[in-house]
Structures are given as C-alpha cells and as structure tokens.
C-alpha cells in the first residue's frame, strides 16, 4: 500500500475514536508542551543573564585572589587576600592589551546624613572604574586622579543610596558621613538596575580606593581587581597578559600554582547560566517521563485497538494482505497519533511560552530546531511504542481472526 493510503487509513481510524485518541495523545501533548515551554523559558533566562553580565562592563576582566594551593591543599577562591595595589600598578604600567584597571575595595558601612541613614556597600575604586563598568555620573562628576592620589574624602553615590539619603534634595555638594568620616558628595551615578543575581547595582557608594583603605577599612589587600581589554578580541590575550604580570609581581616560580584567578565576564555569565542549565535539564527529565508515559498510553490503546479490530485484520489478511502490510498499517497509525500529539503539544507549548512571557515579562525564545526535534521525537515514540502492538496484529492467524467475535 502506498504511504498516503496508509496515512489516510490511520487518520480514519483515529477519527473513528476521537475522544480516545485525544486522551491517548494527552501524554505526548503535555510532554512536548512542557519541553517547549521549558526550553523557551530556559533560553530566555540564559539570554537575560548574559545581557545582565554584559551590562557589568565593557570587555571586563576580573581578578580575584585565591584558588591557590597551600601545601597541597586547595584553598578555593578568595581564601586569601593575595592581591595588592602593586599588582594594579604593575599591570597598568606594563600590560599592552589592558586599557583600564581598577582595584575594588569592598566594605559595608552605615552612612548618615541629616535627612536619613542607610547601610550600604562602600566600594573603593580608581577613576578607571567608570570606564570599565561603563558607568558615568549622571549628576555632578566622578572623582578625579588627584582625589585618588591625595586620598580625598569624596564620594559618588549610587542612585538608590542618593534617594535613600536625600529623597528629593540635590545630593551633589552635600556631606555624608561614612562610618565616622565625613565625605563630600561630588556626583550621583546613572541608574544601572539589578544584577544577574537580583541585587541592586545602584545600592552603592564609590570612593577613591586610597581613601577607602586608609580612612575606612585600613585593609592593605584588595579583594578584587577589574580591568578592561581594548576590544572583545583582545580579551584572551589580556587575560594571559594579566596572569603573567600578576604571577611576576607575586614572585611565583614555574612550579607554583596561581594564587589568584583571572576570569572574563563571559565566563562569569556561563557560570551564572549553568544554574539555569541544571533547571532546564531537570525539566527536560520531567518532560521525558511525560513522553514515556504518553508512549505507554499509545501502546496501551494500540493493543486495545488491535484486539477490537481482530476481525478487520482477519479480513485484510484473507483478501491478501501480508503480515508486513498489517504491521505497517498499525505502525503508521501509532506514528500518526504520536506526530499529531507532538504537533498539538508544540502549538500548546508555543502559546504557553508566549503567555508565560507576556505575564512574567520573561523573554522566551523557540528555535526551529526544537520544533523539528519535538515532532520527530513524538514520531519516534509512536514507532517505539507502536511496534509491539503492530507486531501482534501482524502475527494473527487469519482463520482465527475472522472467527473472532
């Protein structure tokens, strides 16, 4: 029989039992729809995270202390504060691919003005910070190299802090007390929004790192150094260069492991995205189980169908159908059932993803590949679970099949 005839036959058979076929396909429909929604949302989440990480800065490289081995024991990142301002100076002086570099000295402190008080992060940074993070002052100005060199008590407020401390008043030119030290506010940063992990980027005060280490924390070491490569292509070269220079500055021999870690922002993005990958994988597993259950449903209904249609099979065999003809007929039927279920599931999934995206504001994306794969997979489920019933139908004895009541 021709394939078209077989497909027509299969559709006829399915149409004869619409309700039953629909219920049977439900497992496949739910499975495929779940896969589509999960992949769409997962993809959206990943691209959102990537975007947020890119928002961190321009061609950014992050150097953190740690990941060192002390006497054979791996210490993990940031176990020891091994970075110093000398590392920054050396890289700034000798690196070719690094266009900007700034230490980041972090502490949390209570800040007070006559209008209010707030606890926030105080980041001691260099003037390059605004270039690396692509983050300029919206009001007033960023502090200059002189302020850094002279450890002046000047501060640039993040948008959130400015609102908390001054409400609607103009903060630039006023004073804020950080710890016990009065600082003059020289600027307010442009708003940057939330980070990938959901914290508020604008809840911060930037001060010269020299001031931060001498007047505030007194810490001689630096928890983080950020730098910018000249261009995206330069990032790997810049990373290698920074690594070599910092090793040199730390007097590490060839046999020593790095006592610091150099990462670029893409690696940070991947690390952040890996958590969503785990979620996607988990959802895919659940969806696979649904497809499996759907497949078993198809098998069950096909077995019932073969029993119900024993006489029909007998007639077909008597008038000259081969076992293989009957096998193909029932196999095509279960494949068609799987594919229809897959198609309905795909449609449901696409609509579901769109609706979910609309109400949650998440970006969703559905690739054509996943559509093809999900339909193909549904068909494969049909083949796999339809084969046994089809085989049973094909093996019937025509005499007994004809006599079957």
């Amino acid at each position, binding site marked *: 029989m021709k394939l078209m005839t077989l497909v027509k036959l299969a559709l006829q058979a399915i149409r004869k039992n619409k309700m039953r076929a629909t219920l049977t396909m439900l497992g496949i429909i739910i499975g495929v729809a779940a896969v589509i929604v999960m992949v769409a949302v997962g993809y959206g989440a990943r691209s959102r995270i990537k975007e947020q990480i890119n928002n961190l800065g321009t061609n950014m490289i992050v150097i953190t202390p740690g990941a060192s081995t002390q006497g054979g024991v791996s210490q993990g990142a940031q176990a020891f504060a091994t970075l110093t301002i000398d590392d920054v100076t050396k890289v700034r002086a000798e690196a070719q691919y690094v266009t900007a570099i700034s230490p980041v000295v972090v502490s949390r402190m209570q800040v007070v003005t006559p209008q209010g008080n707030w606890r926030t992060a105080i980041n001691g940074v260099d003037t390059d910070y605004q270039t690396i993070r692509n983050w300029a002052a919206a009001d007033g100005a960023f502090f200059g190299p002189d302020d850094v060199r002279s450890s002046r008590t000047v501060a640039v407020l993040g948008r959130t802090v400015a609102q908390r401390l001054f409400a609607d008043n103009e903060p630039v030119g006023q004073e804020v007390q950080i710890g016990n030290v009065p600082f003059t506010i020289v600027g307010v940063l442009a708003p940057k929004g939330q980070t990938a992990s959901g914290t508020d980027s604008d809840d911060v005060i930037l001060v010269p790192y020299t001031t931060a280490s001498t007047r505030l924390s007194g810490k001689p070491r630096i928890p983080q150094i950020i730098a910018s490569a000249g261009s995206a292509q330069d990032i790997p070269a810049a990373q290698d260069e920074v690594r070599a220079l910092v090793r040199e500055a730390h007097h590490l021999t060839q046999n020593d492991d790095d006592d610091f870690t150099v990462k670029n922002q893409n690696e940070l993005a991947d690390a952040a995205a890996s958590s969503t990958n785990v979620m996607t994988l988990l959802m895919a597993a659940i969806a696979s189980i649904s497809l499996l259950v759907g497949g078993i449903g198809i098998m069950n209904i096909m077995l019932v169908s073969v029993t119900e249609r024993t006489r029909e099979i007998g*007639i077909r065999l008597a008038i000259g159908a081969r076992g293989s003809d009957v096998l193909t007929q029932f196999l095509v039927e279960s494949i068609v059932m799987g594919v229809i279920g897959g198609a309905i599931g795909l449609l449901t999934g696409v609509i579901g993803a769109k609706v979910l995206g609309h109400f949650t504001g998440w970006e969703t994306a559905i690739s054509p590949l996943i559509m093809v794969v999900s339909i193909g997979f549904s068909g494969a489920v049909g083949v796999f679970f339809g084969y046994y019933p089809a085989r049973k139908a094909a093996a019937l004895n025509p005499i007994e099949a004809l006599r079957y009541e």
Partner: protein
Amino acid sequence: MDDVVIQTNALTKTYESGSNSVHALRGIDLTVHRGEFIAVMGTSGSGKSTLMNVLGCLDTPTSGNYLLDGVHIETLDKNQLAAIRNEKIGFVFQGFNLLARTSALENVELPLLYDRSGRKRDTKAMAIAALGRVGLGDRLNHQPSELSGGQQQRVAIARALVTEPALVLADEPTGNLDSRTSIEVMALFQALNEQGITVVLVTHEPDVAVYAKRIVEVRDGRIRRDAPVKNRHNAAEDLAAAELLPDDDLVAGPSAADAAAGGGASTEKAAAVSSGERSVA
C-alpha cells in the same frame, strides 16, 4: 490441465491439541474445473470448514498436494499464500465481513490495494465496475450500516470479483440472510457462474446447495459423495415465482407454492427442507 482450477491429492489436515490429534481431513481428492459451481456440504465437524480454509489458502495441508490454478500451494510460505489469496481467490463469508464505517467502494477496492503484481492500476474504476456487476452501481458511497444484509453480501461478492480471481470461495454466504434474500444472492452466484466464474460454495443447507451444479458431501474428513445436482434450481426463476406470492409465504408456506409449481421436487433432501417457491424447477 488448463481448465482445472482445483486439484487436490490425498489432502490431510491434522490438528495437534495437547496429546491427542484431531484428523480434520483424512485424504481429500477433489478436482474442480473452470466454470464449475460446486457446493461443499457437510454437518459441523465434518471437516468442510477445514477444507474450505485449505482450499482458500488460509491454512496449509498437513500432507498431500493442492494445485490451485497451476500453482502448488503446499510449497508456499506465508507471504506467497497471501499473494495467492489476493490474486486467485475471492472470498465471500457468512458474516459479510465488510469493514465498518467504510464505503462500499472502498471495501471493494481493498483487495486491489494489496495487489503486488502492479497490474491493477485504476483501482477505483475496477471497484466501480465490480459493484456494477452485482447491481450496486448506485450505492458506491454507502457504508455497510446503510445497506441491507443482501446488499452487504453483494458488496462482499463484488469485493471477491474485483481481482478477477480464478475461484470464488463462498463460506455459508446465505447463513445470515432471510430466505428470499438468500435466493437473490444465489441468483447472483448463478449469473456470475454463467459468465464463466468458478464458484465453490460451502454450506450445510441443502436448499442452497441445489443451486450449484455439483454437490460434494464431506463427512469425517472424507468425501462421501460427489455427484452432479439432479433437478438443479434456477434462482432467478424461483424469484420470479416468489413474486406471485405474499411475503409471508416466502418464508413459511409450502402448500401454495407446491400447488403453483406442480411439484418438480429435486433431491429428496432438498425437497424436504426447501420452502415452497423453490420447488419451481
């Protein structure tokens, strides 16, 4: 040999069920020539069903030879048997065995879809022609549920004819029909036989068998009697005679018909069982 459709030689069939074996056929020698109309008769358990299954290539004999239209059946495998059934045999069953919720046309077309010889091209036209032959040219798109029993059986006969088989094998074709419709169906078989089609009819009803040309009686797996039908009935004439009678008498009344017919009784047996109108020979 050319005009021999069926030739069996010492055909046996034994079913093994557990420790004991059932000898359904114990040596059947039967020759059927082209254009014959044979009634295979026998009570249940006589082996006639087994014989019909073997002749219909639905089953293979345990021993012996079976030559159908020049082909040695006993040597064929399952797929070859399927092809033989498709090309050389047209089946008509007691229960019509049409596909439900499938139009008459599609039912008749069905055997052609399983044809592997590639000879049958315009399957739809062939199916329409076959339905025309059984007088159902105006019922092409009716489903079995929309047709009477007699019409359904005629669709089944059209399905048997559509492949132009060497042999039409009818298994109790009138078993589910009332007597008037039975005669109609037998009239159709007789008409087709007149056109040269070889018909083998399996029945336990003597009053159906009288429309055949030859009766083969099977008992205990052997042919007990093989003789031409004396006083063969013409179904068309029987029908014409029946037209004169009220419907009730078709089924029940022997007396009026006897009077009308002037008692041209056929065989003892047939006359005893046959209803009145059939005795018009």
